[in-house]
């Protein structure tokens, strides 16, 4: 007899950890397809996590008042996130991520700075920004995130918990499919790929390579910001803010793209795999048959060891990587040269 409840609960945990990775990775995919390597994902995510959390805690009653209700009616929403507040918090987090990304765009597209160095700098800047303002956010509280589906569905036995996953989980999978469609079927997607494949050729036939890249960089920042806000607002039992709470998720998103060899549907597969590595820690901890070094050292390291392992396996086949890697990835480009 298969214990359905157990496996569904595991799936819910996996989806919970996979969602922010998937959202950030779709951003990274589009950015890299346009020929830009932005290693600042971790920095943009942590800024998104902080902005999302702070916005969420201020918007609890503000969004209610904006809709025209009086203060007394709105008091019932204090400490809980309403749907408009939820949407606004995520949008603000995305804008914060894009704002940080605009600095990267300025550096790499206007000053032609080295992509790797600038991206690393962006990550360090993001961590610094949140270390500076982080403490101010600590005494705020947000108690619950609005549920999107009707309560009756979520209360269903067994399947209810799966349906009760956050709206963004559904949206992230939709976005993965949309990114596949965008890159392979739309004109703009073709332009993005052209800019990434050979920027000299794309420039020669009159495509605005730098403009396209600025656009994808901002999009990547927006997605990273939203992914960060998912971690602070949705991922844990209750919305929380902690310095450095993204704990390498931005780097995992970058690893996901290498794992996927720049193919959207394999990004989904990778996100689920990486999410599983996170959930295994929680699952295996309680089993009791592991030695202490396994529980205290190997299990907490699994989310980082599993990506290394899959990268090793994938990277052995260099033909597959070459087939899909954007030709101009990480090469600075200026129209005059």
């Amino acid at each position, binding site marked *: 007899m298969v214990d359905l409840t157990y496996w569904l609960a595991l799936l819910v945990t996996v989806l919970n950890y996979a969602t922010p990775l998937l959202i950030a990775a779709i951003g990274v995919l589009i950015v890299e397809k346009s020929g830009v390597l932005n290693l600042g994902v971790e920095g943009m995510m942590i800024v998104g996590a902080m902005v999302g959390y702070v916005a969420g805690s201020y918007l609890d009653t503000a969004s209610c008042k904006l809709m025209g209700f009086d203060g007394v009616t709105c008091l019932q929403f204090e400490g809980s996130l309403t749907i408009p507040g939820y949407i606004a918090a995520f949008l603000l987090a995305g804008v914060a991520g894009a704002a940080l990304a605009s600095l990267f765009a300025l*550096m790499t597209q206007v000053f032609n700075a080295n992509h790797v*160095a600038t991206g690393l*700098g962006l990550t*360090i800047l993001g961590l610094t920004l949140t270390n500076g303002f982080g403490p101010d956010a600590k005494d705020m509280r947000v108690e619950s995130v609005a549920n999107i589906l009707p309560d009756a569905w979520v209360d269903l036995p067994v399947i209810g918990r799966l349906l009760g996953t956050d709206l963004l989980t559904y949206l992230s999978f939709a976005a993965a499919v949309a990114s596949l469609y965008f890159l392979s079927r739309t004109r703009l997607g073709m332009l993005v790929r052209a800019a990434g494949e050979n920027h000299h050729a794309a420039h020669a036939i009159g495509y605005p390579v730098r403009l396209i890249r600025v656009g994808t960089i901002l999009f990547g920042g927006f997605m990273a910001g939203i992914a960060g806000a998912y971690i602070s607002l949705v991922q844990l039992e209750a919305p929380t803010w902690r310095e450095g709470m993204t*704990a*390498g998720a931005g*780097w995992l998103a970058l690893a996901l793209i*290498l794992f996927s060899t720049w193919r959207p549907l394999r990004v989904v597969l990778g996100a689920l795999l990486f999410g599983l590595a996170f959930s295994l820690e929680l699952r295996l901890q309680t089993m009791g048959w592991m030695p202490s*070094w396994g529980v205290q050292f190997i299990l907490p390291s699994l989310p980082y060891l599993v990506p290394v392992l899959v990268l*090793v396996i994938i990277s052995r086949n260099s033909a597959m990587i070459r087939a899909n890697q954007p030709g101009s990835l990480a090469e600075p480009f200026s129209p005059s040269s």
Partner: protein
Amino acid sequence: MIRLLPAKGGHWSGALLSVLVATVATVVISAILLAFLTDKPVRTLWELLTYTMQGGTPAVQWGKALSEGFYLAVIALGLSVGYKAGVWNIGAEGQFAAGAIGAYLTWLVLGAPVTVAVMPFLLLGGVLGGMVWAAIPAALRAHLNTNELLVSLMLVYVATNLLTYLVQSPLQGCAPALDAAGNQVGCIPYSPAQSEKLPSVLRFGPLVFGTSASSGASIGTKIHSGLLVLGGAYFVVAAILLFTLIGFRLRVAQSSAKAERFAGFSSAVTIWLSFMISGGLAGLTGAVFLMAESFSLTVGGAFLSNLGFAAIVIAFLGRLHPVGILAAAFAIAYINSGASWVASQPELRADDSVAGFIEAIALFCALATAALSQRRLIWKKEAASHG
């Protein structure tokens, strides 16, 4: 009039100009930012820049900048080797931790002796620890074609977990618990968890003493004998990079993979060399930090203070050149120490993130002006420029 012409391979006048523009831009942007972050921007900036003359004795204040500068410079020098050759080791933070662990384990393996004679072995253990940790991304890159940037970074998290595990389980130190009669009946683990401290003969002591600002008593500064070890290592490695064949082969690798093969150097050797130098230097720094400042291993988050990540910034600020790195490391360490001094002054109400901001601003200014160093500055009369 002054003109900027493209100069392939770089030119000293362009390099000088880029450093100048970057410095001025950093100062201006930092000053504007300080005006937003603090109530008294002018005084804050003044105290930050002259912090060695504020409070305490200059020796104590200088010690903070000097020790941090040495740590940053040595790690950054190692990283710069790989960065020149396109080998991205961004996991120095983990190799630093592995170095400290290596030094401590070496001491235990030798039977925990209490004699100065084992200090070189501890340092060697630190170098080996860092190299072992760096060997993982090196081997995966060189032989299995795996992205070394991500692997080295992932291993930072693994090293942090390893450190935490070690001090919470096998290496956890404890204070003796006594019963009413004063007999030892057991052991109470330290909280927060940490290992037993290294005996004092194995520690790098202060070379310079200053007077405490509060009590007037003589106290040791952070200018300790371990800095001589780091200074020596910096000098030797920098000399190797600048004046020997190994240094030349790494510079060749930087210019092109084709030239590298043509000169008879394989890229696998370049990868291994880069990682062993950077891992070894980060490990050595970790060992010195253990023997001079922390004395015991502590949980990952408490032991590591982002030196390995800050060193990445230093490497780029120093334009990957040994002399530049030394200058950048001490400049940033001075600003860091000044900023933490300013943050400790309640009447200035400055945030302790000031240092981080200035560091990031300096990095972006340096990167934005890097293209200038590929240009040549020339002075021409107006008429001549038409001809």
